[in-house]
C-alpha cells in the first residue's frame, strides 16, 4: 500500500509535466489545446528518430527535441491558433481537435501503429532503497525533472521581464498593446513553453512505457484531470493534481489491478463535485499564479 502511494506520487510528477503546458496556455490565452497529448507523442517519435536513425544518446535526443517542439509551438500559435483567439472558446477547440486528428494520422502513416519505446539504458532497472521501499531511479528522475520544470517556469514567470509581460498580457491584452506589447508574440512564447514542456513529458513517458501514434488523447485526459484537480490555471496545482491522480491510480491498481484508470477518474469526478475550483484554486479559477 505505501509502495503504491509512493509510486503514485512519482507518477504524479509525470502527469504534472504533461499538465503544465496545458495549464499555461489556458491561463494566458484561454485556449484549451486538445492536441496537447499528441504533441507529447510527436516529441516521443522525434526522439525515437534521433536515437534510432541518427544514433544519438537518448539524453541528446531530448536536448534536440525540446527546442524543436518549442519552435513548433511558436509557429503553430502564430500561424494557426492566433486566428482562433477571441471571446468564444469554440474555434480553438475545433481547430486543436482537428490538429489532434491530423497529427495522429500523420504519425500512423509515418510510423505505423506499432508500439515504440525509448531506450533508457540500465537506468530503467536501477532503484534506490528508501525506508525499506525500493524506488526506481527513472521515476525518481522524472519526478525531479517535473519539479525542476515547474520551479523554473514559476521563477521565469515571477522574476523575468518576459514573464512579467506574459502575466500582464494574460490580465489585459489590450492594455498590454498600449504598453508596446504585441500579444500575438507573447502568445507564441507561451505556446513555445507549453510545447517544449510537453515534449519533456512525452520523452519521459516514452522511457517509462511504450506508446503508439494514438496515445495522445489518453495523455491529454490525464493532463486535463491533473489541471482540474489542482485548480485551473495554477502552475503548482498541476503537481498537486498530478500527484493525487497518480496516487489514486496506483492505490486503485493495488486494490484491483483492472480498475487502475477508473480509480483516477473517480477521484477527478469527486474533486469536480466537491471542489470544482480545484485543490489550489482560490476564488475564481483565473490566473496562472507563479
Amino acid at each position: 500500500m505505501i509502495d503504491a502511494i509512493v509510486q503514485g506520487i512519482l507518477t504524479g510528477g509525470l502527469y504534472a509535466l504533461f499538465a503544465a503546458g496545458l495549464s499555461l496556455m489556458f491561463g494566458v490565452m484561454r485556449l484549451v489545446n486538445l492536441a496537447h497529448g499528441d504533441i507529447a507523442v510527436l516529441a516521443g517519435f522525434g526522439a525515437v528518430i534521433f536515437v534510432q536513425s541518427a544514433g544519438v544518446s537518448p539524453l541528446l535526443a531530448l536536448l534536440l527535441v525540446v527546442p524543436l517542439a518549442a519552435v513548433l509551438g511558436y509557429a503553430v500559435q502564430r500561424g494557426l491558433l492566433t486566428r482562433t483567439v477571441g471571446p468564444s472558446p469554440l474555434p480553438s477547440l475545433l481547430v486543436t481537435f482537428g490538429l489532434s486528428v491530423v497529427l495522429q494520422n500523420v504519425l500512423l502513416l509515418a510510423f505505423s501503429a506499432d508500439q515504440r519505446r525509448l531506450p533508457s539504458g540500465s537506468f530503467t532497472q536501477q532503484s534506490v532503497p528508501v525506508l525499506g521501499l525500493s524506488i526506481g531511479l527513472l521515476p525518481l528522475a522524472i519526478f525531479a525533472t517535473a519539479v525542476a520544470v515547474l520551479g523554473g517556469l514559476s521563477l521565469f514567470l515571477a522574476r523575468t521581464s518576459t514573464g512579467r509581460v506574459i502575466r500582464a498580457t494574460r490580465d489585459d491584452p489590450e492594455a498590454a498593446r498600449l504598453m508596446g506589447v504585441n500579444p500575438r508574440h507573447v502568445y507564441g512564447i507561451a505556446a513555445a513553453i507549453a510545447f517544449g514542456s510537453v515534449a519533456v513529458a512525452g520523452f519521459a513517458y516514452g522511457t517509462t512505457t511504450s506508446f503508439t501514434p494514438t496515445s495522445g488523447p489518453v495523455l491529454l485526459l490525464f493532463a486535463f484531470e491533473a489541471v482540474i484537480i489542482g485548480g485551473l490555471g495554477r502552475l503548482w496545482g498541476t503537481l498537486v493534481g498530478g500527484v493525487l491522480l497518480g496516487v489514486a491510480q496506483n492505490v486503485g491498481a493495488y486494490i484491483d489491478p483492472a480498475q487502475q484508470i477508473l480509480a483516477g477518474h473517480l477521484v477527478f469526478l469527486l474533486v469536480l463535485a466537491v471542489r470544482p475550483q480545484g485543490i489550489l484554486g482560490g476564488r475564481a479559477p483565473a490566473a496562472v499564479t507563479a
Partner: protein
Amino acid sequence: MTPLLSVAGLEVRYGDLVALSGIDLEVREGQILAVLGANGAGKSTLLKAITGLLPPAAGRISFDAADLARVPAHRRVAAGIAMVPEGRRLFASLTVEENLRVGARAGRPGPWALPSIYGAFPLVAGIRTRRAADLSGGEQQATAIARALMSNPRLVLLDEVSLGLAPVVVKQLYATLPQITAAGTTVVVVEQDVRQALAVADHVHCLLGGRTALRAPAAGVTVADIAAAYFGTAAGQDAA
C-alpha cells in the same frame, strides 16, 4: 511649426455605425487639448483611433508629421504615444511596480524612470508592492498615469481620468499635470468634468454625436459655450 499630433478628416465606424466623422484637430508640442462631449459623443473612440486600437475608415492621423496608418498599436508607444485608458485597465495580478515596469517596456529614454516617478507620485511610491487589484480607485488612476509616463511619451492621452473618483482625488491627479507638461510632454484629456478640463487646457474640442461641435482656445470659451456645444442647443460654431 508642424503640430505634434494632427488628425484630418477622421472617420471611424463600428460596423455600419459611424462613431466619428469629419474630425480635424491639431495639438502643438507641450500643449494640453481637452476633448469634451457627452457619453457616446465619440471621445474614447477618438483616442482609440489615435492609439491604433481602432482602425479609421477614412482620414489621416499623423504624429510628428509621420502618417500612423501603417503603424500597429503596439508600435505607437515606441513612437512616443502613451495612453491612460478609460477604467484604468491596470494589470490586476501584478504589483504596482510590476505595472510600471511593463509601462517602461518600449524602452524610450527620458526623464521618467522608477525613481523620478516615485518622486513625482508619492502616493504611488507608497503602494509599490501592492497588487493592482487591491488598490482604491484613486490609487489605481495614479498608477495608470504613472505607468503611461514610464514610456517617456511625447504625447499622453488621458481617457476619463476623473470617472468614478472623489473630487478631492481628481484635484490631486490634475495637480500632477504641470509636472507632466514641464517635461515637454503634450497631453490630450478626454473629460466629463468641464470645469476641471477648462482649468488646465490650452484648447478645447467638443464632440457631439461623432462630429465636431466646437473648437476653441480654452481661454476664450465659457462653460455656457461648452454646454451649448455639449447638447447641440446652439449651432456648432468654430470660435477658433
